[in-house]
C-alpha cells in the first residue's frame, strides 16, 4: 500500500497573521513551518505502517508551494515519510482552493496512491476543503474530520467526528481522508531523523510534468476572486443581569433563554 500525505508550508503559529491589502492575500512572510494539522496525517500514516494490519510500502509527503516549501517536506520526512514530492511552478501562484485541489489531484495521479491523508485544515487558509476537492478529481471517496482509523482486509474503519458524537464508517481504498487533530499525538522528530531528512529522495515537478492545464490554475485559472476583506463585525455587548435576588435572576435568565427557544 502506498500512502500519500498532503502537507503544506504555513506561517509559524507564533507569527501574527496579516492580510496584505494590495494582494488581498495572507502575508506569508516571516517564519514558516509545516502545517501542524498535517503532522497528524503523517502520524496516522506512520501508525498504519507500524500497526502491521496492512502492509505499507511507502509514505510519500506531497506538497504544492514555492521553493521554501521544501522545508515543510524536510520536516515531513523527518517525521517518518519515506520520500517527498514538490509541485512548484510560478504558474500556480494565486490558485484558489478549487485550482489548488485540481493541481494536487494531477500530482497525486502520477503516484497512484492507495490512500491520501491530509490534515483537516491549514493553519493559514483554514478552508477545510482541499481533501474533498482532491477526492472529487481523483474520483475517490472523501472523508473528513476523521479521529480514528483502523485497517483490516483492504478496508478502513473510521470514526468521523459528527455534531454529536461520531459516525463509524467503512471505506474501501483508494480514498482521501482528512484527519482531525484528535486522531493522535504526533511524535517529535528525533535528531537522527532530522539529520537524515535531506538524504531521503525529493522529486520536484512542474505543472507540465504532471499534465496540469495552465488555464485551470494560478490567478487566471481560479474562478473565485477576493473583492474585499473586512474584519468581522464587533459583537454586540450582551445583556447584564444584576444579581439582586437570586430567585429573580434565575427566572430572568430562564425567561431569556426560553424566548430564544434555547431550552
Amino acid at each position, binding site marked *: 500500500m502506498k500512502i500519500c500525505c498532503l502537507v503544506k508550508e504555513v506561517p509559524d503559529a507564533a507569527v501574527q497573521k496579516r492580510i496584505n491589502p494590495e494582494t488581498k492575500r495572507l502575508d506569508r512572510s516571516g517564519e514558516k*513551518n509545516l502545517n501542524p494539522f498535517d503532522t497528524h496525517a503523517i502520524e496516522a500514516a506512520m501508525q498504519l505502517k507500524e500497526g502491521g494490519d496492512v502492509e505499507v510500502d511507502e509514505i510519500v509527503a506531497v506538497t504544492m508551494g514555492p521553493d521554501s516549501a*521544501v*522545508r515543510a517536506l*524536510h*520536516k515531513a520526512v*523527518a517525521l517518518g515519510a519515506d520520500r517527498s514530492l514538490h509541485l512548484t511552478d510560478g504558474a500556480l501562484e494565486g490558485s484558489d482552493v478549487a485550482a489548488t485541489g485540481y493541481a494536487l489531484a494531477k500530482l497525486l495521479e502520477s503516484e497512484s496512491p492507495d490512500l491520501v491523508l491530509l490534515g483537516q485544515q491549514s493553519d493559514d487558509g483554514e478552508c477545510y476543503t482541499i481533501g474533498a476537492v482532491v477526492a472529487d478529481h481523483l474520483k475517490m471517496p472523501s472523508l473528513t474530520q476523521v479521529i480514528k482509523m483502523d485497517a483490516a482486509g483492504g478496508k478502513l474503519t473510521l470514526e468521523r467526528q459528527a455534531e454529536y458524537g461520531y459516525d463509524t464508517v467503512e471505506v474501501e481504498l483508494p480514498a482521501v481522508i482528512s484527519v482531525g487533530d484528535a486522531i493522535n499525538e504526533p511524535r*517529535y*522528530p*528525533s*535528531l*537522527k531523523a*532530522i*539529520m537524515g*531528512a*535531506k538524504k531521503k529522495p525529493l522529486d520536484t515537478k512542474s505543472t507540465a510534468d504532471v499534465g496540469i492545464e495552465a488555464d485551470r490554475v494560478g490567478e487566471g485559472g481560479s474562478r473565485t476572486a477576493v473583492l474585499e476583506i473586512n474584519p468581522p463585525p464587533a459583537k454586540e455587548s450582551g445583556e447584564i443581569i444584576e444579581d439582586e435576588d437570586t430567585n429573580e435572576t434565575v427566572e430572568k435568565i430562564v425567561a431569556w433563554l426560553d424566548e430564544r427557544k434555547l431550552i
Partner: protein
Amino acid sequence: MDFDLSDEQRLLRDTVRDFARQDVAPVAEELDRTKSFPYELVTKMGSLGLMGIPFPDEYGGGGADTLTYALAVEELTRIDSSVAITMAAHTSLGTMPIHLWGSDEQKRDWLPLLCPGEKLASFGLTEPEAGSDAGNTKTTAKLEDGEWVINGAKQFITNAGTDISGCVTITAVTGDADGRKEISNIIVPNGAPGYEQGEPYRKMGWNASDTRPLVFEDCRVPEGNLLGRRGDGFKQFMQILDGGRIGVAAMGVGLAQGALDEAISYAKERRAFGQPISKFQAIQAKIADISAQIEASRLLVYRAAIEKDRGDPFTLTAAQAKLITGRLAVRATEEAVQIHGGYGYIEEYPVCRFYRDAKILTIGEGTDEVQQMVIARRLGC
C-alpha cells in the same frame, strides 16, 4: 554574513521548543518544588537524541554542530533551567572530554551509554580551594600497581549523584614536572571503591538539577582511565570550559527569552487603571529594552558557536557571550518579576523560579570576573 539557520538547525530548534512546551513546562514547577531530578525527561530527551547532540553518529550521537546544540539548550532554558543544565552539563562538560581525548576503548566503553542519555556524565574540576583558581587542585592521583589511587574532594559537581550517573572526569595532581604541578584528567566511574557522592546542596535555584560534593578516599581506578596524555589536564579543562561557555551563554539567552515571554503575556492580561498594563509606557520600555538586548546577545552566542564550528578561535567571543548573557538573564528575570508585581513573588508563576535560576549564570563555569579576565587578556591587557 548569513543569518539563516540551516533546515536541520531550525527543525531541531522547533522540535525542542515543542518538547519544552508540551513535556517540560507542565512538570517544571513540581520538579523544582520537590527538588526532584527529571529522570523521565532525561529518558525522553535521550530518545529524541538531545543528550548527545554534537557527538558522532557511530556512538549514538547526533552528529550535529555546536550551533544546533546551543539552539537546543536555549529552547530548553526558555522553559526550565534545571532540565537544560542537566542536558548541557552532561554534554559539554561530562561527555565532551571523553569524545575529545578518549582512547578508542574509552570511547567505545562510554559514548554509547552517554550519547543516548542512558548514563550521565559529569566533570569534576571545582574544589573547596580551587574555584576560579581551578589550577589550584589539591586532589591527588598516584600510580600504584597499575591503578590510580585518588584522594581529595570536589565541590558543586553537576550530574554526579543521580541513579543514572555513569562517571565523573576529574582533574587531579599526578606529579611534579619542572617544579610545576602536573595535572591530569582521570575518568572515575560511579561505584569505584573509595568514591562517594555527598548529599545534594540546598540551592537558590536549579533545584531539579543534581549538584553535590564528591569525596575520594583511596579511590582506585585502572591506570587506563587516564584521559588523554598525562599532564595535559590543565590544557584540557581550559578547552572544555571554552566550549562550555557557549552552552551556558545559550542558557542566558533562553532564560531571558523565557522571562520576556512570560512578562509579555502577563502584561497583556493584567489590567490596572482600566487597561492592560502592557499599554503603560513604563512597562513597554522594560519589554522593549529586554527584547533588544536578547536579540543582540543571541547573535553573539550564535557567532561564538559558528566560530567553533568553523574551527576558528572562539575563546574571546564565547567569554564575551557568557559575560553579557548571564547579566542579561539576571536583569531580564528581575524585570519580568517586576512586571508581574506581587504575583511574580509567588511560586505559581514561572518568573519566580526564573529569577532564582538566573543568578548562577554569572557564577558557574567561570564567574563574570573570570570572563572579564579572559576577555581582557585576549585584548592584550
